[in-house]
């Protein structure tokens, strides 16, 4: 499909350098890649300028040297804009988007638990989804992680006593 989609045109008008990075998979599915340094600025534009105001899903990916994140964002008419961005594993830290999309909180916690990526600015709260006695330094969705690692670094025996 050609890149003649009204949303693509509006993005190109504001950020001409991004227009080449957008793929139109179908009328309701747009995919784009963006460097992490520009990500938050673009997201603000997506909320205010494009009215993409529904947060659907956040996918984390282990991409060899990088951690990639796909933010699946939707508008109220059925369009999904998939924004992919990545940070190097040596600096595995991103900033929360809960200030713009409060619905993202649990899925950002998932990224922390399952990939070991720090999320700056997340409000205080319980971890999700791993148990409280999960050993430190074990991140199951990383590609090099296998279950036998838990033999060497087992679950902590006692969780904190909630009545103490």
């Amino acid at each position: 499909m050609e890149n003649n989609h009204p949303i693509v045109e509006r993005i190109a008008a504001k950020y001409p350098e991004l227009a080449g990075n957008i793929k139109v998979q179908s009328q309701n599915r747009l995919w784009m890649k963006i460097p992490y340094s520009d990500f938050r600025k673009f997201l603000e534009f997506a909320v205010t300028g494009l009215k993409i105001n529904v947060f659907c899903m956040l996918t984390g990916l282990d991409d060899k040297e990088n951690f990639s994140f796909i933010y699946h964002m939707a508008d109220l008419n059925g369009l999904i804009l998939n924004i992919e961005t990545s940070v190097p594993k040596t600096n595995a830290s991103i900033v929360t988007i809960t200030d713009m999309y409060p619905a993202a909180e649990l899925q950002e916690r998932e990224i922390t638990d399952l990939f070991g990526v720090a999320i700056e600015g997340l409000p205080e709260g319980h971890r999700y989804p791993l148990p409280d006695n999960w050993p430190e330094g074990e991140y199951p969705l990383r590609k090099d992680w296998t279950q036998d690692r838990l033999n060497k670094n087992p679950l902590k025996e006692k969780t904190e006593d909630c009545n103490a």
Partner: protein
Amino acid sequence: MPKKLVIPIGPQHPALKEPASFDVTLQGEKVENILVKLGYNHRGIEKACESKPYLHDLYLIERVCGICSHSHATCFLQAVEEIAGLNVPMRAKYIRSIIGEMERIHSHLLWLGVAAHEIGFDTLLMYTWRDREVIMDLLAILTGNRVNYAVNILGGVRKDISDEEKGQILKAMDILEERTKYYAHVATEEITIKKRLSKVGYLSPDDAVKMGAVGPTGRASKITRDIRAEEKYAAYGEVDFKVISDDNCDVYGRALVRVGELMQSYSIIRQLIKKLPDTPLKVPAPLKIPAGEAVSRYEAPRGEDVHYVRANGTDKPERVKLRAPTLANVQSVATMLQKGYLADVTIVIAAIDPCFSCTDRMIVAVNGKSEMTWKQLRQHSIDWYKKNRGVDFTKIKLGIRS
């Protein structure tokens, strides 16, 4: 000034049918803050999917949920089929939609019962769950299973619907429609239900979008989004139906939306059965899926289900990510309960219809000696009530099997 108190509800609590934990901070009887903790059911399915072929993943993903099993399986397959460029035959799409609507019917009837139970109206629980057996029997006839129907395969479906089964489906729809009309009457006219549910768990339309509420929870707050209408996946482009929404923005509205959707589901199933096209059931699917990625959406009974699949050209996916509707809805619970009362906590949590499994089949050992079938158990209960309570249930005929 009353003292602040933190009451933990869950992870194990009689009012919750699944493990989840809510720390409720109270100022007197009023809820001041609520802290949600989830993850007690985390089974590592996304990681497991990466190490298994697509066909195995399908059966694994069907077990994500005991109620929306068909929703997750269809949503996952739609993504894989899009990457592989498979054109699923129309008859298969129709059958997927028919089973999907039946799943919605049994889920909404189940919810109606749970919600009634949470407000102490157990007669309605007994009624709706009895009627739900009609649709459970029907699913067992059509697919061989009450839950985890496994009707999907890559490129189509594995099971056809015969002419005899069509008749059974239409008969069941008539029975259920009549019963649902009665429930709609009860929900709108019965003053105790109305008073108990109105203005409880208020969620404004703005907050619904902000907190990502989906499905009946969002639609009861004036968000008229329904993925069936937006994406027209499977056979939903071929039928007429209304997207039910409500402007009450409270638990009462959520009940009305679900009852309204039941009526729509009966109509959708009748239309699909009438137009069921005569095509093959499936197309051949490759074992290795070419590299690519896709996002698929599906309107599950509880709301929008989203699956992301990235394929790398092998027979196993590179990454599978899914977001069930409850994860989207549960974050709005804290907003709904702000300035609410402790007594409303359980019904507000129940009103988003958090997902739990109901996979039990009714085969029970009595005194460890004999086994009873469903039919025998039903007869046993009828006899028991007749003898001990003087109530005769034999006049009630609801089953679709003679």
